[in-house]
């Protein structure tokens, strides 16, 4: 673990450095408060610090105050070192944001014990951050497939549509639905159904670039967003994605299955600035057309001009796909 030592006096600094080095720390030693603050502000900087109270440029309490004002960064555990030790000073030191206080000359054993307290606090913080990150992941991802969930993928799509409109590029929206998935669930059970969904999720992620998005849109429906996708190549890429599902059997606990996917495709550049709901509705219609055409195929949403005045040629009722 990295630790920062800030002391302007060479002998004490060397003594501390060696003591902590021997205790297994990775020591960074500096001579004044300004350098200390620089080190502590680095992204991968030390999270444990021993700061001498009296230093040129910026004193120990000054470093503590400056570090504590940057609330967004990870916690730094700071111990002030001083030769004095009056009650007033202790209070002043702790109020400046220091976590602990040691009087010089230090006792090596006490110093190590107090730093272990600091490490415990930092470990606690790490666990809290990890728990928060886990919760954030769970709030934005589908539990079964670990893909983005519907809310998260729609948020990202909205942002991407905004950007592609601004930059006059095209975003390709793909809505895919596993053909006859209900049959898998009904005849082989939900456990196999889940296996199929997980494998399809993996194949979709493998079929796109790292900066594209794949989300679970509904039960067996997947939304794929191809960012900055040349409209001329989009149908080709959509076909590749479709074939990544059908060209290989899916291994399940009840044996291998061959499944296909129907896909609707929409190119944002052909639709002007339309609300995301409208675009998703149009790609849904294209998917329905693919189903109606016999499944295992791709249909592209065609912009009917003028879109605003023409009633949709397809029924708006809820459609069931199998």
């Amino acid at each position: 673990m990295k630790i920062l030592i800030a002391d302007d006096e060479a002998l004490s600094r060397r003594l501390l450095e060696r003591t902590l080095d021997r205790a297994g720390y990775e020591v960074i030693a500096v001579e004044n408060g300004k350098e200390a603050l620089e080190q502590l502000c680095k992204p991968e900087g030390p999270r444990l610090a021993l700061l001498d109270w009296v230093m040129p440029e910026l004193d120990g309490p000054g470093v503590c105050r400056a570090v504590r004002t940057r609330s967004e960064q990870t916690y730094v555990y700071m111990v002030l070192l001083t030769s004095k030790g009056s009650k007033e000073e202790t209070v002043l030191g702790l109020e400046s944001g220091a976590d602990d206080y040691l009087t010089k000359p230090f006792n090596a054993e006490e110093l190590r014990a107090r730093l272990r307290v600091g490490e415990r606090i930092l470990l606690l913080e790490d666990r809290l951050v990890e728990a928060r990150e886990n919760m954030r992941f769970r709030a934005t991802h589908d539990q079964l497939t670990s893909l983005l969930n519907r809310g998260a993928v729609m948020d990202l799509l909205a942002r991407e549509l905004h950007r592609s409109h601004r930059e006059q590029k095209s975003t390709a929206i793909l809505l895919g639905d596993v053909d006859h998935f209900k049959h898998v669930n009904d005849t082989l059970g939900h456990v196999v159904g889940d296996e199929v969904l997980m494998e399809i999720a993996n194949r979709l992620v493998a079929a796109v670039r790292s900066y594209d998005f794949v989300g679970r849109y509904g039960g067996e429906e997947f939304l794929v967003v191809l960012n900055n996708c040349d409209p001329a190549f989009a149908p080709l890429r959509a076909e590749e994605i479709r074939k990544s599902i059908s060209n290989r059997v899916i291994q399940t606990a009840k044996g291998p299955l061959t499944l296909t996917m129907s896909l609707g495709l929409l190119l944002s550049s052909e639709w002007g600035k339309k609300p995301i709901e409208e675009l998703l509705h149009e790609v849904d219609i294209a998917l329905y057309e693919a189903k109606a055409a016999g499944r295992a195929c791709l249909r592209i949403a065609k912009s009917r001009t003028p879109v605003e005045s023409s009633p949709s040629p397809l029924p708006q009722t809820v459609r069931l796909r199998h």
Partner: protein
Amino acid sequence: MMSKKEEGHSEPVWNLAELLERVDNDQELLRELLNIFKDDFPQTIRSLQSAVNSEDLKNSSRLSHTLKGMLSSLGATPAAAAAAKLEALSSAGETGSLEGAFSALEAEARRLLPELEAYMAEVRH
């Protein structure tokens, strides 16, 4: 070698045992610290003397603080106490008492330096 107790002083001039404990019996580190001291001390005390002579309270306080840290890390408790006194007087603005306090610090340093020299000479063999 044990530090000697001198007449009229209850505390050893240099507590080698304490220092050895602090450095975990690391003789090499101890030699290194003594060398840093040999390099830094004379210059710091000379600067302190001129600060005291010119009644420069800010520097007198800063330099006596530095010496106090150096001396206490080394386990030279009486000299560290003399430096602490000079620091306190400087901070309190007691210009009239600075000379006396400085002389006391110098006297402690004169007792300390031969002990350090003797130790260094001894471990070199």
